[in-house]
């Protein structure tokens, strides 16, 4: 017996064209009583599938390359599902925003109550690791800070050793980066390495 039996069985399409395990949603949603359509794994196949199978809901990875293909269908075809609004005071919509943050995007046919999407997104969210994303954000921020420190160190060393004002020290690093087609942080790192010898 399905837990949340929808009033009419919603037809759900999953687009599974990224490495995320979105496909695993299929069984979980089928158990909840949704009508799961055959999955689409490439942007080229989307127009025909949406036309022929008329999904009520499309669940897609936020980072799927097929997103824009779906956007075109939403604009050109009145029966195609539209991207859901993420900005609303409606408390149910908070879940949708969380879903986008976690990497799930949803498209609904017009007139479909967003509340009916909630259990679908609940399941989708449970399958996506929030934590993995947070860890990556943290790592990225740390790299960024480290890069900035390297450039500052190199600049300071140039100012000391060559008696350059700050702007000129920076300009020197930048010019070198341009001349050699390198990133400025790599120039800074190379300079510090040479200076240590």
């Amino acid at each position, binding site marked *: 017996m399905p837990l949340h039996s929808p009033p009419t069985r919603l037809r759900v399409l999953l687009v599974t064209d990224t490495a995320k395990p979105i496909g695993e949603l299929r069984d979980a949603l089928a158990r909840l009583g949704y009508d799961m359509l055959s999955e689409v794994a490439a942007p*080229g196949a989307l127009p025909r599938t949406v036309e022929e199978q008329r999904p009520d809901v499309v669940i897609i990875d936020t980072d799927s390359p097929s*997103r*824009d293909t779906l956007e075109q269908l939403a604009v*050109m075809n009145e029966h195609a599902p*539209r991207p859901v609004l993420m900005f609303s005071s409606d408390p149910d919509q908070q879940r949708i925003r969380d879903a*986008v943050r976690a990497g799930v995007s949803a498209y609904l046919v017009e007139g479909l109550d967003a509340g009916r999407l909630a259990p679908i997104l609940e399941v989708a969210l449970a399958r996506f690791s929030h934590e993995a994303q947070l860890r990556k954000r943290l790592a990225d921020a740390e790299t960024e800070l480290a890069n900035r420190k390297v450039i500052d160190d190199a600049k300071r060393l140039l100012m000391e050793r060559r008696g350059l004002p700050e702007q000129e020290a920076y300009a020197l690093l930048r010019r070198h980066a341009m001349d050699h087609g390198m990133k400025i942080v790599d120039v800074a790192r190379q300079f510090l390495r040479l200076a240590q010898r």
Partner: protein
Amino acid sequence: MTPLPIMNTPASHPSVSTPELRHLRLGFVSLTDAAPPVVAKTLEFGHRYGLTLELCRQPSWAGIRDKLLCGEIDAAHALYGLVYGVQLGIGGPHADMAVLMVLNRNGQAITLSPRLADLIAAGHRVKDAFATLGRPPVLAQTFPTGTHAMWLYYWLAANGVHPLADVKSVVLPPPDMAAALASGELDGFCAGEPWHAVAESLGVGRVVTYTSEVWPDHPEKVLACRRDFATRHPHTARALVATMLEACRWLDEDPRHRASAAKWLAADDVTGVAPERIAPRLLGDTGGTRARPIAFFDHGDVNYPRPSDGRWFISQYRRWGLYDGDARDDAAIADAVNQTSLYRDAAASLGIAVPDDDATPVARLCDGAVWPAA
């Protein structure tokens, strides 16, 4: 060295003279015209304005939109038309948006299958070339309200082909265009580079027109953010505009700079396309045609966010039935989206001339129409 004027602008905001935010997440899409953000990051042009940029590549324009709206990214390299599509809520969420500046003009194209391109080169009309298919041509672009959709529709209409009634109009990710042409799924596409160069190198398509032949020196990508981002962080927004202006100026300063940029754009985390595919057109090669090359700065003429450009996109949405709002509101919408005074401040701090609104150059488009209309 005197501090930069932008850092000393008398604060209209409660005594804040440095950017309210120091770390900005900037979205971009895998394209040659992502050069300004890529250059700004590679050469860290933001540092002197107190900004650290973090580039966040997005696999779709919908991703750019959603992440701007929910705050995952602060600003983005975006299709001019995407910003206006979101402002008008066409086919998706509505939000008040801001165009901070234009990042480039020209640099896009329409490619058709070699067979169609041959027919057109032999003097057949576009309409007649399509008729040889025995079915409506399938033509792809990149986003329903985007620039490529509008260039393609405009060009088709100018050639007697109704872009919605006579054509099957689809959207595909640009990196998939060449394969779709090769398999016969697609008869042509309008997108940015390097994807035309890639299709030509594989022999699966040929450029039939550059978008500068549709609208000479048309505006293309913009620096976009949510409007409340610009109003809540005016110093940050100005610092970001100054940073990107420096990157645009650098790109137009010396052809060697563009050659360096081609190498950076080739990186796997930017386009992953060989620099030989990127460099020629980035350096202005348009195959001996009279097409105008991509420009990023042109003494600042490229970058001023002219409201009349925004109005053009609204007029095209109305033309193709995507929008039915009152045309008398178009000017007010464009004036609210395009952040001209913020741009003026940033440009003045760098000594970059700002074109006069009253002296907007009149362009003649491929169907003979002029814009802005008299």
